[in-house]
């Protein structure tokens, strides 16, 4: 028994040492790791997309619109989530905020990052590579996630008896939470989807660039009544919304719910007119909050 425990300690010590070795001896390996080869290129195709946000008709919550849509250009998106090793390079370059979770295993997705950390990383990648890196929109993420995307609607709140939906949501979230390992796992642990994306819907949720909207669907037309870019769409095993400065989703939730396990991200490379799209959304985002 004692021997077994000692052995475990030795392994743990080895693991702790690994990041240092990785960083000091093999930056080249890490660098090629995030090269072009790790991006999936997905040509435009029709796909079903359910809009993110809260929608209502005549003052009652309704399902958000689901329609067949198509991106205007091919999507170039990271096959895996940004890893600890990658984020640490940005941190060491002084371009990304220091976060406590960056001392985890280098080959696990970086977690404990908020939307601003992800933005900082994307900005640094763009500056160092000359390519335009940014977070995907919710629509892009859903397209790349393909069969791993979850587009089902959470139970709708009936204003005359809201508790039924709360209980149904709570039970659905509880069932899901019980099956999730909390600690981030090595890249690839949660498999690969038909677009070659790894770990979609695993235990790390991903920031998107899409702002939370509230909209009405009266008279057959969609009208956005409120856009809150302080809250962004977060994607994973289910879609949710997070305040942009939250790093640990477990402390960002409300009193009675089951939050995502971890917050991480993956990036896309802008393939259209460089930077325009991300810049525009960021411009409006910063306007909103100023």
């Amino acid at each position, binding site marked *: 028994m004692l021997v077994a425990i000692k052995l475990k300690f030795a392994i743990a010590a080895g693991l702790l040492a690994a990041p240092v070795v990785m960083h000091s001896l093999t930056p080249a390996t890490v660098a090629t790791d995030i090269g072009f080869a790790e991006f999936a290129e997905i040509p435009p195709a029709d796909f079903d997309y359910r809009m993110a946000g809260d929608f*209502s008709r005549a003052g009652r919550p309704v399902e958000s619109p689901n329609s067949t849509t198509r991106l205007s250009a091919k999507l170039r998106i990271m096959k895996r989530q940004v890893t600890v090793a990658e984020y640490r390079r940005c941190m060491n370059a002084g371009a990304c905020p220091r976060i406590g979770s960056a001392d985890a295993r280098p080959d696990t997705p970086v977690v404990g990052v908020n939307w601003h950390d992800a933005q900082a990383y994307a900005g640094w990648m763009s500056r160092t590579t000359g390519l335009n890196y940014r977070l995907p929109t919710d629509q892009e993420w859903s397209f790349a996630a393909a069969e791993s995307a979850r587009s089902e609607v959470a139970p709708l709140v009936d204003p005359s008896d809201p508790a039924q939906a*709360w209980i149904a949501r*709570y039970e659905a979230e509880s069932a899901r939470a019980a099956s999730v390992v909390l*600690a981030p796992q090595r890249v690839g642990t949660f498999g690969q989807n038909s677009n070659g994306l790894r770990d979609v819907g695993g235990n790390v949720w991903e920031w998107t660039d899409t702002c939370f909207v509230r909209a009405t669907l009266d008279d057959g037309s969609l009208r956005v*009544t409120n856009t809150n870019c302080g809250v962004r769409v977060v994607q994973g095993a289910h879609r949710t919304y997070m305040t942009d400065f939250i790093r640990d989703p477990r402390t960002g939730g409300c009193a009675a719910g089951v939050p995502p396990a971890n917050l991480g991200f993956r990036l896309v490379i802008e393939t259209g007119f460089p930077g325009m799209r991300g810049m525009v959304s960021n411009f409006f985002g910063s306007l909103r909050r100023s």
Partner: protein
Amino acid sequence: MITRRTALMGAAIAALLATAPALADDLKLPRQHVNLVAPPFVHPHEQATREGPKIVEFKLTVQEKEVVIDDAGTRFWAMTYNGSMPGPMMVLHEGDYMELTLVNPETNAMPHNIDLHAATGALGGGALTKVNPGEQAVLRWKATRPGVFVYHCAPEGMIPWHVVSGMHGAVMVLPRDGLKDGDGKPLHYDKIFYIGENDLYVPKDENGKYKTYETLGESYADTTEVMRKLIPTHVVFEGRAGALTGKNALTAKVGETVMIVHSEANRDTRPHLIGGHGDYVWEAGKFNNPPQKDLETWFVRGGSAGAALYTFREPGVYAYVNHNLIEAVELGATAHIKVEGKWNEDLMKQVSPPGPIPPDKLGAIDSVSPVVTR
């Protein structure tokens, strides 16, 4: 203060008790054996009884073991009564005798005992129940005061360590004719939950990571150092963050009356039911005092138990928390109660869902003022 003499006396009496359970036959009373269940549940019991006093037999077995106390997998050396922290709630009626067998199996490392706040004399029984690994003791005490009371381990020199390592629980002594409000009207509950709050002090290494230890004994020095700073690393219900949320959430129905007994053996706490109230609350937990009505938050002193009755009126998911919200949300002291039933619009209705601020109200001053100033 324990003198050498009282310690010796305790040992002598403990020896007497241990030799002959037959001694307890000096009382010609009916006996009842109770099988205990782990919190948040409570063993079946009558709320009021027509029967006369009896001897109620309970057995607590001490288990020292490593447990996980949060979703991050933090490991912690616990000392427990019957394997749970807190230990099980024991229910009897005023005038009954509790005959408690305390077993300390040989596999344990530490001596243990039990101080029952409901009992009178011998440090609550602590002086008569000190058992080393491989020993057991039997204590009988008369339940003279109705209420909910804490019990805990109290070995000389190491009391707080044993308590904050999990060795505490609660006794409920019910009035023979049941609970009453201040006007003598009987009160009943359809369900009872026992919520035991733990303040835990887990040492960290130089990198801020929680430390693990190969044995209980090895954790003592570091743990004591954290304890002496009085800032718990975890404040949880039933020994673990999330013990009463998600799949483990408590359940009730609209119209059901629920009794929630809340104990904290070491530190003050302030239970609050988010979205509900305490209809009748025995804040200090003693049933000879009339319950307070309609409380929002109630105070449970460290080293005591409180009891609250509430009849659910609206369905939904309720959070039952220690309303130091930092302790509830950041440190773990949150439970959830799923309540099924029909929504009551008279009590609450969403008149207008979140939406844009109507321009005629928001913009009124802005649009009018230029005209006025011109």
